[in-house]
């Protein structure tokens, strides 16, 4: 129902406008033909089969689809695949340690029960990864503000906030 322009105009669309997109996702190069109107999240999920990123509202409020574009968080439901030509994308699939073990933040989320259904989790993880990188010693209020653009209906946020603070302290302890 959130149809693009043809919806409002009520006209039959022309032949699909196909473009080639080349990008890196979680360090791996991809190149594919996409219709220009394809959102980045649909491209990731349905073309590259990286289904870890979720779609919760398709209007940029819930934050479940948050990914990192060249290290900066963005809504992949409001971004077109053709906009990220040449970019480095990070999704939830790229956040674990190289050996497959959970990252410090992922581990903290499990210990603090910062996830229940797991649907908002990809957006929480990408948002917090960026935040903790840029704010190594955050206050609780800063963490809450950082994730205020990510809705969670299950947890009441407390476990997520505690996990972020725990992860920050462990990352700091690891730092030489």
């Amino acid at each position, binding site marked *: *129902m*959130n*149809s*693009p322009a*043809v*919806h409002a105009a009520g006209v*039959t*669309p022309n032949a699909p406008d196909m473009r080639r997109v080349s990008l890196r996702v979680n360090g791996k190069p991809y190149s594919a033909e996409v*219709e220009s109107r*394809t959102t980045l999240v*649909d491209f990731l*999920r349905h073309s590259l*089969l990286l*289904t*870890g*990123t*979720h*779609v*919760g*509202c*398709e*209007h940029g*409020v*819930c934050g*479940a689809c948050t990914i990192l574009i060249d290290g900066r968080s963005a809504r992949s439901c409001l971004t077109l695949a053709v906009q990220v030509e040449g970019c480095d994308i990070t*999704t*939830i*699939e790229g956040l*674990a340690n190289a050996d497959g073990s*959970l990252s410090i933040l*992922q581990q903290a*989320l*499990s*210990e*603090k*029960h910062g*996830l*229940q*259904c*797991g*649907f908002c*989790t*990809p957006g929480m993880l990408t948002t917090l990864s960026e935040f903790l990188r840029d704010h190594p010693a955050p206050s609780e209020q800063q*963490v*809450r*503000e950082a*994730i*205020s653009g*990510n*809705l*969670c*209906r*299950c*947890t*009441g*946020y*407390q*476990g*997520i*906030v505690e996990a972020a603070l725990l992860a920050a302290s462990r990352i700091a302890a690891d730092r030489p």
Partner: protein
Amino acid sequence: MTAAARPSPEPGHAWVGSPIQRLEDHALLTGQGHFVDDLHLPGMLHACFVRSPHAHARIRGIDRQRALALPGVHAVLTWADLPEAARKRVPVLLPNPAIRDPLNYWVLAKDEVVYVGDPVAMVLAESRYIAEDAEALVEVDYEVLPAVSHALEALQPAAPRAHLSVQDNLAGKLNMAYGDVAAAFDPAQGAAHVVRETYWQNRGAAHAMEPRSYLARHDPATGELTYWKAGQAPHLDRKNIIELLDWNPEKVRVIHPDVGGGFGGKTIFYSEDGAVCAAAVLTGRPVKWIEDRREHFLTATQERDQWWEIELALDDQARIRGVRLVMTHDNGAYFPWGIITPYIAVTTVPGPYVVPAMDIDLRIVHTNKSPATPVRGAGRPQGVFAMERILDKAAQQLGLDRAELRRRNLVQPEQMPYSVGFIYRDGKPVRYDSGDYPACQASALAAIDWQGFAQRKAAARAEGRLLGIALANYVEGTGLGPFEGATVRVQQTGRVSIFTGASAQGQGHKTTLAQICADQLGIAISQIDVVLADTAGISMGIGTFASRIVVNAGSSTLLAARAVRSKLLALAAHELGVAAVSMGDAGLSGAVPGLEQALELVDGSVRLRADPQRGISFAALARIAQAMPGFAFPEGVSAGLEDTQYFSPAQSTYCNGTHAVELEVDPASGGIRILRYVVAHDSGKLINPLLVEGQVQGGVAHGLGNAWLEYMHYDAQSQPLTTTFADYLLPMATDVPRVEMIHLESPSPLNPLGAKGAGEGGTIPAAAVIVSAVEDALADQVADRLHFTTSPLLPQWIVQRLHA
């Protein structure tokens, strides 16, 4: 959170009762979950629905030619295209004689639409993008009819009718009473005070972060129909599919994979469920439909619009003598879940208080809106809101402390089990099984320092800040029967499987059930594979709602695991040559004392206590129990190391709790800042404190949304006006405080775990306690007496009241 989470219990402690990290987490944290939209099947078609833009209209014609001409469009289905069995209405679950017009969904609208978003046609295309293009090209000719939006107006004689087929909008009515209500309200017989008020609560959808998501596949060669759904009640879905498609029950399989939140909204078998399954049969291709958020706002079931005219009679000692109420329930257009919600709402009113007499007049009203069915709390938040608010008003009138008024009226622990006087929705009397309500209230008050508040208020006042405090109590019927089964099986690999019909939407059922099983079999939960919500895994099931899974599926798991333990012991005794013990039919008899003394279960083996070097692994025992062709079992050993139980509780269990809040109100903006939020609650024996705390914290967040953020606004033509997350506000991380929790554990005598249920208590009294605290903060800001009567209480309404 107070629990320190661990991957396994402290040495020497059981799995049950320990704050165990979840089995579910690793996959979800690494993007390896399996939600319905993550499934891609070859040849899959994507569905999109053509929906009514009108709240009430007659369909005069549907022109699909332009849509069908679009490349990539496979079909546009209407009601007339459906298989014959699917051209009837979806069956009403839980029919009730009180329903006069038991109308439920059509799979696709036949000739009349009755709410905005009612599905009229279904487009099937090679991609969702093309399906949405085509949806815009389907032309529906509507004759717009008058719509009814407001439930009280709907009862006026001149009101438009919500359906063409009904005489009026009173869809059902019910009168329930116990005790001598007339005497209770008679001043001559001791009614010293009567307090009256009318309250209203607004509706909203469940808003799980994952929208509704459906995928159906029909294999014409075998006749098998497989349905993947983001749902809550797989066996009920299966029952409806069998009925609507007139299908062989043995050829329908429903699977709920990872489900991204439920909160009630995914329990329902909707129009779209039937349409997706029918389309897979008609096209011979897999069909997927993923709801978008706007559709969730329009069409997912919603809850809480109710009007309560309530009267409370008290004696001269402020003891409750009776309650009288008329409740009007906005049911929306259909009855997919019977009248469970208003029924629970009214029977929740007495709560933890002794109410000697009660009279309830319940009116259930059709409106042109999405149907009302349970959303987290399921009617209880409304019943609690009405009762707690009228108690606050009574305290105000009598000049009594709100906590003291409640204290005088609480059911005492020595009155347990306590019969209220009603019949609950399970058909059994409302009979509270256990709990210490005075201790619960007292612990919450102590935690929030109720006595010291006056001083804090005065100190804040000196700084120009307005503080308020409040408490609210509830009793919640949980653990509803009739059953939820579990199969426990030792596999030939030595791993253990648990199957149950219950589905999970984030509660952590896999972990909880594995903990229960692990204690019985002496293994770690990492050795257990839990399969939830696959109708091929277990023959019967009900579903996940009413905080019922631990009581029902948990107890079944416990009993099945005990039986499997006995089988392991019996077979191992034979293999290890433990003699001189009469084994009997070990599989049916539960624990076998003689064998328990001789043998122990450790790390996936059965070994001799006297000689731990001698043992036999579960894997070896499973292979023996699954047998070799032609060999006979020894006496007392039966096939397989597995058992299935369908535990059936005698009646509902009853949780209770007290919420207390201290908050600050900004009179200029109506903004609220919660300073402290305390929950003292008793949900029986805790299986995993970490997960219970998560349920309480999340439940409170949902209730806070109901209290002052979430407002589903319809105009007079029943057109929804709040259909994005920018208009309809869910609580954010900056809105929800840390909830301080006190766990009281009164084991339920009604199940072998002593469990009750923890999924909804966080939500139930939250609106009542927040609104009361706001009122307390602002009481001296207005010249007249201040009493807020609505939930939500939006910030702009607070400001309006202050300037009225």
